[in-house]
């Protein structure tokens, strides 16, 4: 089962603005951090991987499929965008049922899989609550539930811990680490601590360019802290 992502010389331009500039990455199974400030190009990269944005140049392969094979890629990825919500009047289980249906899952598959994923994200007890009654953290967990519902090989998650309280953030990081067993999870964030605590490997983007790609230990190197290493990497004092 191919869970690898290969990106070569990927560029994305919006008119004169360069959002990604010749990015090359090879991402293997496990939890992979994508670190960068706001506007670094993380969201653009994730949306290209999720087939929601066309690239300007370069080549991308997701799970063995070329990026032009959008339908095949959508079948094997789970995507949690940075900004999302659900129809507020739906119940938690109904929201998942609808999204599962759109992922091509059969009635039987949905019937067995929805309780499983709700347990996995600790929302089973809240399955009959309406989405509008959920807290921010619960909505994020529901977001993860919809992303893993069809058991994807590759999970692309954007800023999942933004706005969460410290306890929720710890739970979330643990959950992502558990989900990375046997699949590739790309975890995009601008929160350095989240990467430090969870990811063995990471890529750092700055103004659309890749400034680091490798092991976390190599990234920190001789610096005192992750923050210092990050500042060094993006070249700002």
């Amino acid at each position, binding site marked *: 089962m191919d869970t690898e992502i290969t990106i070569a010389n990927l560029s994305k331009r919006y008119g004169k603005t360069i959002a990604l500039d010749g990015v090359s990455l090879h991402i293997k199974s496990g939890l992979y951090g994508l670190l960068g400030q706001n506007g670094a190009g993380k969201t653009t990269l994730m949306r290209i991987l999720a087939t*929601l944005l066309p690239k300007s140049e370069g080549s991308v392969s997701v799970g063995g499929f070329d990026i032009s094979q959008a339908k095949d890629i959508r079948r094997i990825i789970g995507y949690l965008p940075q900004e999302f919500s659900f129809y507020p009047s739906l119940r938690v289980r109904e929201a998942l049922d609808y999204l599962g249906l759109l992922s091509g899952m059969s009635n039987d598959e949905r019937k067995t899989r929805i309780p499983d994923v709700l347990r996995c994200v600790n929302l089973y007890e809240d399955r009959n609550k309406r989405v509008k009654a959920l807290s921010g953290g619960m909505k994020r967990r529901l977001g993860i539930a919809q992303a893993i519902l069809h058991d994807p090989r590759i999970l692309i998650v954007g800023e999942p811990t933004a706005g969460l309280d410290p306890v929720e953030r710890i739970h979330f990081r643990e959950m992502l680490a558990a989900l990375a067993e046997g699949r590739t999870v790309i975890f995009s964030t601008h929160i350095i601590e989240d990467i430090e605590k969870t990811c063995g490997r990471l890529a750092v983007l700055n103004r659309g360019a890749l400034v680091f790609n490798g092991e976390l230990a190599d990234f920190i190197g001789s610096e005192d802290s992750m923050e210092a290493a990050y500042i060094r990497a993006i070249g700002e004092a």
Partner: protein
Amino acid sequence: MPPDERTGDFGRVNAVIPEKTMPNACATLATEYLYERGNSFADGYSDISGVPNYIRQGYMSYSELGFIQRKTLSPEGRSEIADILYRITGLTAEEISSSINGLYEPLPFEYRSENDYSGRIPVLVDYGTFTKEMRRVDQIIGGNSAYAEKKLILFATREATYEEKYAEYEGVVKDDMVTNAYARYYCDYMMIMVALLCIFIPVSLLLRDRRARMSELLASRSVGSAQFIAVRYAASVTMALLPVFLISLIPTAEFIVWGGRHGIRVDPFAFIKYEALWLLPTILAITGVGFLLTVLTDTPVAIPVQIAWSWIAIMGTGMALMDIQSGVGGWWLVLRFNLVGGHDTIMANATHILANRVLYAALGIGLMLLTVAIYEMRRKGRIDVLGKIRFAAANRKISDSSVAAE
């Protein structure tokens, strides 16, 4: 129930009766002439005082979109109208007015036969010459006036005969099996509701994705764009048709009971048939417009666009109704048939009606297919009209603020 021959009263029908049509048309024309002249010149025409302004404004006619309008004429046009009246009656407009006891408020076209001035206004020409003169009057006014040849029928009525009334009854009972006649009448009114309201369903359905911030979650699923759009399109169409269908169950049940009680065979599927063949194509087309414009722009722009189109169609088809009293709407989006009965008219126009309905059904399906293509492009980030608008607006704000700062 069949008409009772013993009553001797079978209602009235519009008809061309030269001895009534000609004086009535001349009386109305003289009245409109005097009002318009009085209004235009304010020349002290005494009888005009106390007449409401809205009828002083000129000759009543209908615009192409079916709106009532009042036309005022040039001095040449006015003088030509006076000449035409004189040629037909040998009288001036003032003399015509005197002979019918002064000015009266010109009635809407469909009620003009209520006045009868036959014998009170002399007519010096035959009906052929009269229609020729009226054609000229219609031209001077600008068309679509009460004097257009096909509307002259509205200036007179005659008593309907028992045979006519019985034929009408037979048409409803035998040809239409009662319910078909009433289903058309029902669909005529429902068509107006559907044309104006059903656009809200697809637009609100599609905009809910953006409002609920679901768009990216939906776009990243593996479902095909064709399936995704087609199912939602079918759901919107069903939602528009469902209330019309449910309401029609009431008259259907009543007619079935009534038919059973009187031993008259009714068609229990008439309402469903007309809803599917008469209303559905309009719903398909409107839903198609809603889908296309909403998916393309991610804004509710389809609502004003469609309401404008529907309004124009309702008004336009109203003109067709006026033209032949039982019009079937030409090529308009909205078909109207405001009669109980009229089976023969429907049959005579069946090919045209069918072509009209097929056109709009095909248009609706075509727009839906176009929406699939646009959604597929949008899903891949190749189209983002709203994003571009916002980007341009943001850039404009930035450049405005930099100009202000300088």
